[in-house]
């Protein structure tokens, strides 16, 4: 499973990034196990001082995920989807990776030629449609027996 992010792969996430990982008990049903076992993984890092993310991406993340940032400026990601702590941690890291990828991706610049081609295509489709409609209409007209 090759890392899908255009951002450089996960080495930087664990080694350079100062991520604070903490575990606590998950919510939901599950009896004694959910009451006692620490399976929820929470990862937090200070967004403004995260130098492993480019500046522009940091701004974008701050605006996109403002609900996940607390007053101290830390971006919090948590996961309690799996029964295993390790897997929840992996899910958290994956979420962070996707967030950073989304923030770093540049919006696709559609070149002038492509936009023009698309407009031409639409116009051509409409012309063809009207032509076919006219042909069909002529056929139907030719079947009319108008005795005058």
């Amino acid at each position: 499973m090759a890392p899908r992010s255009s951002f450089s792969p996960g080495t930087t996430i664990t080694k350079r990034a100062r991520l604070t990982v903490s575990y606590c008990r998950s919510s939901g049903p599950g009896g004694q196990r959910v009451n006692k076992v620490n399976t929820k993984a929470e990862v937090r890092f200070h967004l403004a001082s995260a130098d492993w993310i480019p500046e522009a991406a940091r701004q974008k993340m701050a605006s996109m995920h403002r609900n996940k940032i607390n007053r101290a400026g830390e971006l919090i990601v948590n996961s309690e989807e799996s029964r295993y702590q390790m897997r929840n941690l992996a899910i958290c890291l994956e979420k962070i990776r996707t967030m950073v990828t989304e923030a770093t991706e540049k919006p696709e610049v559609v070149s002038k030629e492509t936009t023009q081609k698309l407009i031409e295509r639409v116009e051509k489709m409409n012309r063809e449609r009207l032509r076919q409609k006219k042909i069909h209409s002529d056929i139907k007209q030719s079947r009319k027996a108008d005795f005058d």
Partner: protein
Amino acid sequence: KERRRGRGRYGGRKCGRGHKGERQRGNRPRLGFEGGQTPFYLAIPKYGFNEGHSLRRQYQPLSLQRLQYLIDLGRVDPTQPIDLTQLTNARGVTVQPLKRDYGVQLVEEGADIFSAKVNIEVQRASELAIATIEKNGGVVTTSFYDPRSLEILCKPVVFFLRGQPIPKRMLPPEELVRYYTDARNRGYLADPSKVAEARLELAKKYGYVLPDITKDELFTMLSARKDPRQIFFGLAPGWIVNMADKKILKPTDERLLKYYSS
């Protein structure tokens, strides 16, 4: 108020059989009969859920929790490479080669509690299980044993008493070659450099620092691997083990040597 007793052995009076009818007279119809209505087991149409079940490969699950339990109790020695033979001797798992069992698979149950550095060899392992073992500084390998080799592996003493030479382990069938040549599954036929890469990838994915096993004191033990044609660690195919005289006989004829070393 006490219950009125019928007396006698087996209960007495009606003997727990009820009053008249087929019940008392022991003439009830066969199991599944519904009085003439099409019974449930015939009304439901057939579907191939169990089709080919006798040809499907089964792997006995071994959870990490069970493995930790065995190590803690001292039934399995983590200072030696852990093999199916070790597990069977410790009665940790029971494998039935005759029931289409092809070995043991590692299951994630107990991944959070696992903390033992082991060199383990199983037949299948899930990703999280591999990650947990490598996080604790161990080594996982998946290898294939054909049914005959598996029987020999599970019950070595019985095999040695037969007096036959140890056969060479067969290579996996077509469907499994792809599985065992993949570094992500830590297959025994995979490229070692790719296995190293896969270890790093898993460490990145699960967010732990991969401990360097080359600097470990048990490195020679952890890197001990079997040859693809070898069944037991110290023994090569073609040798005969004599339990009574406690001797090992090795073939000397060059044709035999050529066959067994191929």
